[in-house]
């Protein structure tokens, strides 16, 4: 489990930025009156590459998979949720909040999986 402040800060920043950009871009592209499933799939298609690029850009500063996977997940989920029309305030703010949520999910999963398995 990561306990160094520098890397936790990097993880949070990468997820917030990836989620916010994915949310904003999805909100910009997907009209609010689309059928939710279509919006969700479109949002996922937008959010996933955004998250990957976000993770890739932050990686040289903060780490490899530890940054890229949570950031990719943040982008994907933010795109899906915003694409379905579920927003709280602005689409970017919604994406940022979802990014933090995805990071918390990753940290909890990490606490469960880390260690010797066989």
């Amino acid at each position, binding site marked *: 489990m990561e306990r160094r402040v520098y*890397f936790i800060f*990097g993880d949070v920043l990468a997820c917030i930025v990836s989620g916010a950009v994915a949310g904003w871009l999805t909100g910009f592209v997907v009209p609010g009156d689309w059928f939710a499933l279509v919006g969700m799939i479109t949002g996922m298609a937008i959010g*996933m590459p955004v998250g*990957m690029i976000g993770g890739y850009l*932050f*990686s*040289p*500063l*903060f*780490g*490899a*998979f*530890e*940054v890229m*996977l949570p950031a*990719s*997940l943040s982008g*994907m989920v933010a795109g899906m949720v915003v694409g379905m029309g579920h927003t709280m305030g602005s689409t970017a703010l919604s994406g940022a909040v979802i990014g933090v949520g995805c990071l918390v999910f*990753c940290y909890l*999963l*990490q606490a469960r*999986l*880390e*260690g*010797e*398995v*066989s």
Partner: protein
Amino acid sequence: MADSKTQAKWDAAAASYDLMASFGVEKRWKAGKEAFFSTMDGKILFLAVGTGLDIQCFPAGKDITGIDISPKMLDKAMPRVENYPGQMTARLMDVHDMDFEDNTFDQVFTSCTFCSVPDPVKGLEGLRRVLKPGGTLKMFEHTGSRCFPFSVMLDLVNPVCRHLGPDINRDTVANVRTAGFEVNKVFNVFLDVVKFIEATAPAE
């Protein structure tokens, strides 16, 4: 003969490799890698040297032979190889086609390597050949995941990633077993994606 396609891919990556990997990535993994490499003992093969970033984590005074498929990576690595406080050489060699004698090494170490070896089972079989019976294979590798949603995500983006660099959804632990090793230990470092793997070449 070296796989020219893989060689060209990593030659192209050599110029920017340290920029991408030397600060955040190495800083984050440094303590874990130092513990991983601290068990180096005897005659050691290190695959693949890359630009030599891992050398800073090696304990001093060991007898290490490094190999890599990319001449441009090795060019970058040479100052680090020459400054290693022990006996270290680095050679241009493809893991699929190594010219070492059978049963040469006591240990083989790999670090984020088998994501990029085109035929991982054949490469691992080559490592088993050059390891002495009872010798150990120690790997620090990233693999695919069995955890949703990462399992799906890694499968989805792998076609893009493998074109640019590594495969990101391989089952390296299964490949190690398929190549004839006995897997002793698997330790998850990050989720079930980044892991330490320790295996033994069986005594025949």
